């Protein structure tokens, strides 16, 4: 187990182009599982490749247990990356794959067999020793890849969306297996994903990576309930926010006024609420003093409807309604939320505020 420090790291490809990563600073404590949540192209995989040593940072430094990684070759870092593809060696059995690293270290046949059995048991594949990689399902192959990685006794484990190629039930099962395994092994892990549910389910903390910048690092609950920037909000399903002016804890715009119970960090902050905390009512209903708008989009999601309401000034808000509520696109509605539901959002740097 090791601490990882990523200190003001930047990266840009030698052949040109903009910054893939800019001023990224992260601390991963020993035994912590940090999820990096980001969209495709946000720089997640590049960040991991800087840790493996495939790329060297253009700026900043990376330290593992306070030891700078600059110039340390990949094979000496004891940092292992698991990617979307299991990449098992097709020329050897499951046992051969898992025992690959122990054999390199000169462990005896008996020691290797014991370690392989122990690791296969850990990933729930006891008895699979003699299977060949082409006889395994995608989920089983990923489990073997995980066992093979653990057999190398890494100090840091990097996971680059390892379950994203799998069907939803198997992905969910493997997330459970991995979380349990992490609880037992307490291996310092960075897990990058673009899937919100995965980041929420696995991470001790979640870092939001937006266009090569870390915009927020916090517990899954705080990231989900109170994203601090528009970029982080986007990643956790808050896709719309209100523009306006601050008057203390009141925020007003052409669409109306809302009460917020949290001070904005600067006057440029906008306001948002989680869709499930926003209520929508037919505007003919009496006694409601909400924001007025018209339903612009309605999507059935099984457990609820996603409703997009276009406000008077053209901005939008997303809400969720129960499936038994009857609304239609074009209906005039009133939107409201409790003061605690609204929160300020700092505009992301990339939005050029």
């Amino acid at each position, binding site marked *: 187990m090791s601490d990882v420090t990523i200190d003001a790291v930047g990266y840009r490809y030698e*052949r040109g182009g903009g910054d893939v990563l800019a001023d990224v600073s992260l601390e991963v404590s020993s035994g912590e599982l940090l999820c990096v949540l980001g969209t495709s192209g946000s720089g997640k995989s590049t960040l991991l490749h800087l840790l*493996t*040593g*495939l790329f060297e940072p253009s700026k900043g430094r990376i330290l593992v247990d306070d030891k700078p990684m600059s110039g340390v*070759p*990949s*094979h*000496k870092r*004891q*940092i*292992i*990356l698991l*990617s979307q*593809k299991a*990449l098992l*060696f*097709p*020329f050897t059995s499951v046992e051969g794959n898992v025992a*690959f*690293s122990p054999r*390199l*270290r000169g462990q005896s046949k008996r020691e290797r067999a014991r370690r392989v059995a122990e690791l296969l048991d850990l990933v729930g594949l006891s008895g699979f020793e003699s299977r060949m990689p082409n006889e395994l399902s995608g989920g089983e192959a990923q489990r073997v890849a995980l066992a*093979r*990685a653990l057999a*190398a006794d*890494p100090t840091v484990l990097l996971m680059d969306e390892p379950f994203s190629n799998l069907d939803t039930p198997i992905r969910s099962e493997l997330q459970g297996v991995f979380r349990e395994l992490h609880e037992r092994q307490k291996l310092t892990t960075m897990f990058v994903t673009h899937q919100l549910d995965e980041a929420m389910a696995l991470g001790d903390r979640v870092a939001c990576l937006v266009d090569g910048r870390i915009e927020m690092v916090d517990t899954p609950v705080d990231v989900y309930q109170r994203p601090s920037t528009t970029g982080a909000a986007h990643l956790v399903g808050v896709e719309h926010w209100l523009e306006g002016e601050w008057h203390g804890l009141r925020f007003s715009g052409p669409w109306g006024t809302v009460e917020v119970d949290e001070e904005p960090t600067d006057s440029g902050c906008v306001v948002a609420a989680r869709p499930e905390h926003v209520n929508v009512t037919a505007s003919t209903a009496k006694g409601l003093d909400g924001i007025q708008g018209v339903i612009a989009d309605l999507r059935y999601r099984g457990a609820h409807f996603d409703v997009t309401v276009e406000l008077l000034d053209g901005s939008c808000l997303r809400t969720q309604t129960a499936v038994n509520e009857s609304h239609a696109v074009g209906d005039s509605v009133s939107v409201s939320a409790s003061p605690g539901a609204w929160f300020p959002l700092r505009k992301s740097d990339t939005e050029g505020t």
Partner: protein
Amino acid sequence: MFSAVDRSRWIWNTFGFLFLIPLAVLAVQSVALRWFFPQLIPAEWQLEMTFDVLNRNEVRSALWTSTVIAAMATAVSLLVGLPAAWVLATKRLPGRSVIIGLLVSPQLLPPLTASMGLNISFLKVGISGGLIPVVIAHLVPVLPFVIGIASVTFSRLEQGYILVGRGLGLRPVEVWRRIIWPLSRMGIGLAAYVGFVISWSQYLLTLFVGGGRVVSLPMLVLSSGSGSNLSLFSALAFLMSIVPIGLFLLVRRGPQGV
């Protein structure tokens, strides 16, 4: 109706049969004394002359010369071609298509023109008339095939394996030995086999660049073909064929890679 397996087996058997017909005719002809159309099998047989072929000094010498030239040309082309194929398959290379074009260009000329041109070039720089110049000349037709086959093999190789290997603690050279080699040995074996056969079959290049002093098996086969002894010609041609076939079986029986 045929199942997919039956169909595949049937197709392979047909191909195998068609492939074996000329070889079988050569084998029979090499032990036939009198065999004229429309006889299905020879009217008279002989074995003496056929077995005598291997005992002839010029045949043994040509067999050895051909083997040495083909083995050396294959070895050198693997030594030069594998790194080149790796770069072509895995790196962004400016002028990649120009390099491939240059490699392939001699194949676009008639063999006689290419061989004579090469011979004249070799004469001008004073490297003609020996085994080594012949090996160097054979690289011209051999290298493009070795590079081409190896390059396809390497481009099919998942580059993530390198990272996996490095992560598991392998130095770059060990990644090659323990991961890339087992994953690509089938393709590299095929490249070596094709390279060997191309060199093994060269006639004009050996004749011109060897200046008549280097006598390979194809030269012997062709010169015997111009004579009247059909059995001798068939025995030599058969001999010339079984070496590549033996090699092919060796490559095919080798361990499977990707």
